[in-house]
C-alpha cells in the first residue's frame, strides 16, 4: 500500500474464550491487549480507598493522616492482588510492582509513627 505497510495486530476478543475459561479467563482478557490494565485498576481502587479514609477521618476529627490512610489501603490492595493471582487475572509482574509499592508505603507509615 502506498505510504507504507500496515502491521495488523490480532487482539484477542471474547471468541478466544471457551467453556472452561471461567471468570478468570474473562477478567484476564484485557492483559493480552494492554499489560498494565489491572495495574491501573488496582491503583484506582487504592486511590479511592485512600481518599475515602482520609477525608472521612478529616471530617470526623478535623485533621487526617494521609500516610496512615495510604498504608491501610495498601494492605487492602495486597490482599486484592493476591486474590487476583488465585483467580488468574493478575500476573506476577503486576503483583510484584503492587507489592513493592505498597510495602514501601507501609514501611514509611511505620517510621512516621512514634
Amino acid at each position, binding site marked *: 500500500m502506498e505510504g507504507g505497510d500496515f502491521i495488523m495486530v490480532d487482539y484477542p476478543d471474547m471468541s478466544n474464550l471457551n467453556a472452561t475459561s471461567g471468570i478468570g479467563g474473562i477478567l484476564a482478557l484485557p492483559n493480552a491487549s494492554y499489560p498494565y490494565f489491572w495495574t491501573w485498576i488496582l491503583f484506582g481502587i487504592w486511590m479511592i480507598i485512600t481518599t475515602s479514609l482520609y477525608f472521612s477521618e478529616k471530617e470526623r476529627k478535623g485533621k487526617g493522616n494521609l500516610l496512615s490512610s495510604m498504608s491501610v489501603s495498601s494492605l487492602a490492595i*495486597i490482599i486484592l492482588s*493476591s486474590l487476583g*493471582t*488465585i483467580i*488468574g487475572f*493478575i*500476573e*506476577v*509482574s503486576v*503483583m*510484584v*510492582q503492587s*507489592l*513493592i509499592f505498597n*510495602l*514501601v508505603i*507501609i*514501611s514509611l507509615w*511505620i*517510621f512516621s*509513627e*512514634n
Partner: protein
Amino acid sequence: MNFKVLLVNMALIGILTFSIFAFIIQTQVDNDVEDSYRLTNDTRISTVYSQLEDDFQTYKDNAESSEGNFSVVPPTQQYGELEVTSIFSLTKTAQIIIKGFWKTIIILPQSILGVPSSIVGIFGAILVIFIVIGVWAIWKGVIS
C-alpha cells in the same frame, strides 16, 4: 525519635514484610495457583524472601543461644562476682534487624526498578556516613 523506637520500627518492618510474603505464598500454595502466577516464580522476590528467612533464622538461633547462656549460669555464683562474657550481643541483634529493613526498603525496590548496584552503593555509603555522624552527635549530646 530515640534509638529504641528506631530499632523496634526497623524490626517491625522486617517482620511485617516477611509475614506479608508468607501470607501471599501460603495462600497461593493452598489454592493450587498455577506456577506462572506464583510469587515465588519471580526470582527477585524469592531471593529476598529466602534472605529474610535466613536473617530471622539467625535471629532465632542467636536468641536461643542467649537463652542457653543465661541458663548455664550456675546458681552457686556468689554475689559480687562479675560475669564478663557477653550473653547478648546488642550490635549483632541490631545488625540483623537493620539487614531486614535494608532488604525491604532498598534492595527489593532497587531490583524491581532495575537501578544499578553502583548507584545504590553510593547512596548507601552517603547514608552510612550520615548515620555515623548522627550517632556521634547523639552520643555527644549535640542533638537529643
